[in-house]
């Protein structure tokens, strides 16, 4: 917003007329929003990291991820409340970084609704319409404002759409959470945006109301035919409502796919763990169509990996066939617990030292001996995101290397003090300590995934670096821990600036 705009606003020439009075039917298939190389840094913390994404017209797109993954920031960038540190966003091919929110063809449904408390329901919904200018060749300047009657018609139609026809005169504070939510939706869609942005709009509702609103939103999306971008951390919500799910973590897109594909073919361990219940294991791809894990070699449907490549394996609980008695499947196990979940039983089965989660229509009591059969089709193989931690550091003395804000003891033979080095730390070279002070540096646990024989823990250091650790112990999320490194397993390499650029992740 520059000063000139403010001055203009004082004299009423505030907005360019809305491009189309009645939105042209939107063609499916072409990208309405194009996000190119967006990076957003807040106070030195990278929230979005070189993110690119295309969103097609009339799609229901969900940005899904744990809190702090950058999904809300991405939405706010599209709405115009934040400006990207780097990169550009295009709406219908037009770059919009310099365009203030009030000139963008998008409208937002806010997380806490943000209904104006000093206006009643009708005036809240009419807020955007009263400001809007529409093209009218017969008017003096070619544009005019909506008449009172037009506004009333549109507001009433929008209120009808959200099922609040007779609520116009009501004070917004007298409405329930669900009703406020509907008013917020009506207020946004009445402006006929090309893209509707929804920032965790159902988060504050109770479960029953949330389910109802999910169905209604989906229906509204079909009726309106505009693009919806929906932010949520609820994976079930994302899978039920969306055409496309964008799974995000740590400011990076993990996977973009149809809900079914996200569920059936998660791209990596994070997605598999975040989306639904799953059995996550570490395995070795012996050759095409052959995978071994937990000491067994099984047939699978994946190929194209390196010979003996270490991979992540995901098996959904409902895909495992459970049979009474042993020696009838791939794994023999004993049922540990059984919980009835309404339409199926969820059981924990201990087999080959791994606790399989199994869902089945038939019940097996705790202590029952069972066999687990895993058909090739239900074994999903994923490339490991990382196989080694990699950092930039410098040699600070004999057998001392500094990186991630700490000085670690690492053999520095062949290097001199002051050398810039790339430090390769294998996952099993890192040791976590309960007491932060016992480690060389401190960090917070951000993820802990059981991989069958060990836990893969991710910690986040105070210098914004991640450490992946393979450990026998489970660590609680958000715990502060100390990080120690077994210097003998670490490999150093001379830092070559050019070579590093190409391989950041």
């Amino acid at each position, binding site marked *: *917003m520059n000063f000139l*705009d*403010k001055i203009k*606003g*004082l004299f009423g020439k*505030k*907005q360019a007329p809305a491009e189309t009075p009645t939105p042209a039917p939107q063609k499916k298939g072409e990208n309405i929003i194009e996000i190119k190389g967006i990076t957003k840094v807040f106070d030195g913390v990278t929230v979005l990291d070189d993110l690119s994404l295309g969103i097609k017209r009339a799609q229901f797109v969900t940005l899904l991820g744990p809190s702090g993954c950058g999904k809300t920031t991405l939405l706010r960038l599209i*709405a*115009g*409340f934040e400006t990207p540190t780097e990169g550009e966003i295009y709406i219908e091919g037009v770059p919009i970084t310099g365009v*203030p*929110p*009030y*000139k963008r063809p*998008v*409208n*937002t449904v*806010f*997380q*806490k*609704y*943000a*209904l*104006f*408390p*000093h206006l009643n329901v009708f005036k809240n919904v009419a*807020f*955007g319409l009263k*400001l*809007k200018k529409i093209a009218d060749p017969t008017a003096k300047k070619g544009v005019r404002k909506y008449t009172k009657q037009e506004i009333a018609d549109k507001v009433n139609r929008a209120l009808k759409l959200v099922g609040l026809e007779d609520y116009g005169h009501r*004070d*917004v*504070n007298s*409405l*329930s*959470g669900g009703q*406020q*939510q509907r008013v917020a939706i009506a*207020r*946004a869609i009445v*402006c006929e945006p090309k893209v509707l942005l929804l920032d*965790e709009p159902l*988060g*504050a509702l109770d479960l029953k109301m949330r389910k109802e609103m999910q169905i209604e939103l989906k229906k509204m999306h079909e009726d309106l035919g505009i693009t919806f971008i929906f932010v949520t951390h609820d994976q079930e919500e994302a899978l039920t409502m969306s055409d496309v799910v964008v799974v995000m973590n740590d400011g990076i897109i993990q996977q973009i796919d149809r809900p079914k594909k996200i569920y059936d073919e998660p791209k990596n361990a994070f997605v598999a763990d975040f989306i639904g219940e799953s059995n996550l294991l570490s395995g070795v791809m012996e050759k095409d169509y052959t995978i071994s894990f937990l000491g067994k070699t099984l047939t699978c449907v994946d190929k194209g990996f390196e010979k003996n490549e270490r991979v992540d394996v995901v098996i959904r609980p409902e895909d495992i066939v459970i049979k009474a008695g042993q020696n009838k499947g791939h794994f023999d196990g004993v049922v540990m617990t059984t919980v009835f979940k309404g339409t199926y039983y969820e059981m924990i089965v201990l087999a080959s030292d791994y606790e399989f989660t199994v869902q089945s229509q038939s019940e097996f009591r705790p202590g029952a001996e069972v066999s687990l059969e895993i058909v090739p089709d239900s074994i999903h193989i994923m490339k490991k995101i990382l196989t080694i931690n990699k950092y930039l550091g410098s040699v600070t003395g004999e057998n001392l290397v500094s990186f991630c804000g700490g000085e670690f003891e690492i053999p520095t033979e062949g290097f001199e003090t002051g050398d810039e080095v790339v430090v390769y730390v294998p996952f099993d070279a890192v040791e976590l300590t309960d007491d932060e002070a016992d480690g060389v540096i401190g960090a917070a646990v951000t993820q802990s995934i059981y991989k069958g024989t060990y836990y893969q823990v991710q910690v986040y250091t105070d210098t914004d670096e991640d450490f992946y650790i393979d450990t026998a112990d489970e660590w609680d999320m958000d715990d502060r821990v100390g990080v120690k490194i077994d210097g003998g397993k670490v490999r150093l390499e001379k830092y070559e600036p050019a070579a590093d650029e190409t391989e950041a992740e």
Partner: protein
Amino acid sequence: MTEKKAKVFRPTAFAFPYLAVTVIFVIVPLILVLVYAFRGSDGGFTFDNFRKVFTEKETLSQLGQTIGIAALSTLICLLIAYPVAYILASEPFKKIAILSLLFIIPMWINFMLRIFALKSLLSMIGVEKSYGAAVIGMVYDFFPYMLLPIYTVLSNMDKSYVEASRDLGANPVATFFKVTLPLSLPGVISGISMMFMPIFSSYAITEAMGDMGTSVIGAKIASLFENQYYGSYGYGSALSFVLLVLVLVVMLIGNVLTNRASRAPKGGKA
């Protein structure tokens, strides 16, 4: 205050000292004022004192003058304080707590000292005792009382309202007049009442900085009680009572407006 047994001692006992203070220093004096106001020179009940208040030309013009100077200073103060509060509550400055403190620190310095300092400063640049000087004095003196409530409301305002407004097509100017200003009215109203009411009854500033044109009703009351003459207590009490009712009315209006403007949003907690 002594208690025999801890068990008998109730928390409400803490209220007794305050109750006593209130009775001695608020209720009894109020009753005294009323008694004096309705007591004639013969010691009997009369409306004469009130009749005098509403018929004496000098008193009425002073009352008018008081309302005038209070309203003018309050308006000027509001026009200066609102933009300052708005700037202090906006993003880059909000984090610098010392800035708002700087505007409040003068409150900690003795009131008369400030007035005399301001008076000397004004006379240095050639502004002598006058109506204008009195208004400047009022504005200067009550500025923090106007600033604080507005600043508090603005800095606590959920910024999603402003974002929602901009999202719906309102440019910054429209957003200010349609959203920010209406939502900050409770602060404005409490600022006005915190300034308007004390000005109404105070006379130190007008006395020190004003001229004949700023002779306010407070000064009149003071002189009635200072230079006692036959019946002056009764007249002064009646005048004080009228003033009290006027202030009460202003306060009530303020409360009604605040209630209407400050319907806090509920629900939708995240």
